[in-house]
């Protein structure tokens, strides 16, 4: 769902549209993913368009997720749709806005493999993580920490 490619001065004009979009997320829920899949080439072209104004921003509503993998702790959470902002001049960065009221969403089961986690040597087999009641994904080598976060996980 491409909302706009715009100069910063134009952002206020679409804030209302974005808020409406957030409301539609609440209303439409799971249909959002399917709608985005239907956007096709036109939106992709719009996203890659650059009119040589360095401050132009690409603003969309997209399913988002954040996965943080530390040496002793994994934390992940997903959203059905946040405002996602990218600047063509800063390909290494992305900004995201959540309204803070929507709950986390499920992203199925997460599998993490490799030797980094729990170094040295890593776990004997890939780690599978299911979502908690609050749709947060937590795996810790410190059981008490994991337990406390399990109960505290909420947006």
């Amino acid at each position, binding site marked *: *769902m491409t909302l706009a490619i715009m100069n*910063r001065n134009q*952002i*206020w004009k679409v*804030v209302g549209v*974005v808020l409406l979009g957030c409301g539609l997320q609440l209303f439409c*829920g*799971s249909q*959002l*993913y399917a709608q*985005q*899949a239907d*956007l096709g080439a036109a939106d992709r072209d719009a996203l890659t368009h650059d009119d040589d104004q*360095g401050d132009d*921003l690409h*603003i*969309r509503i*997209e*399913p*988002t*997720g*954040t*996965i943080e*993998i*530390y*040496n*002793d*702790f994994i934390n992940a959470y*997903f*959203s*059905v749709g946040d*405002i*996602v*902002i990218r*600047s063509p*001049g*800063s390909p*290494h*960065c*992305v*900004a*995201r*806005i*959540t*309204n*803070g009221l929507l709950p986390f*969403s*499920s*992203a*199925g*089961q*997460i*599998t*993490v*493999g*490799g*030797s*980094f*986690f729990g170094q040295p040597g890593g776990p004997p087999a*890939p780690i599978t993580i299911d979502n908690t009641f609050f749709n947060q994904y937590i795996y810790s080598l410190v059981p008490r920490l994991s337990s406390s976060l399990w109960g505290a996980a909420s947006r």
Partner: protein
Amino acid sequence: MTIQSTGSITNPALPLTTLHSAKASFVQFLTPVIPSSVSETLIVQSTQPLEFTWQKVPGLEGVRIAVSLWDIGGIGGIGEIRCGFPAEDLHGTLPKSLLQAVKTFVSGVGLSGAILRVLVGDRKEVKENGVSYVIELGPDACCSNIPIDVGVNIQF
């Protein structure tokens, strides 16, 4: 390190994605200058880019510096800016355009609290199929002179 998810009706599956941990043992950041006291916060001006610079050390090849400015509060929402800079560049910029955009969307006024997290390791954003899945990898303590979570005040 590999990661993937099966997905759900609302969130598409994360395809098998590979990240790499850092070989570098310690990275010394020159900027931003982190307050020495935990009771002090880093002040970030939303009208200026936030510059990160660090010294060259062996083992930076293929490493990324994951910079997250998150939990940016306002009456209109909660914002975050997540970046992953190639460590070999020895610098990275969190652009003011994104700081200003976050300010607008969260309706930030005056000072807003936030948290800065810097990891030495790897970071990817999976964008295929219209999603934004950010994956950050790195030890949570050991590998730079920036503590794991630094309190920030953003001057809107």
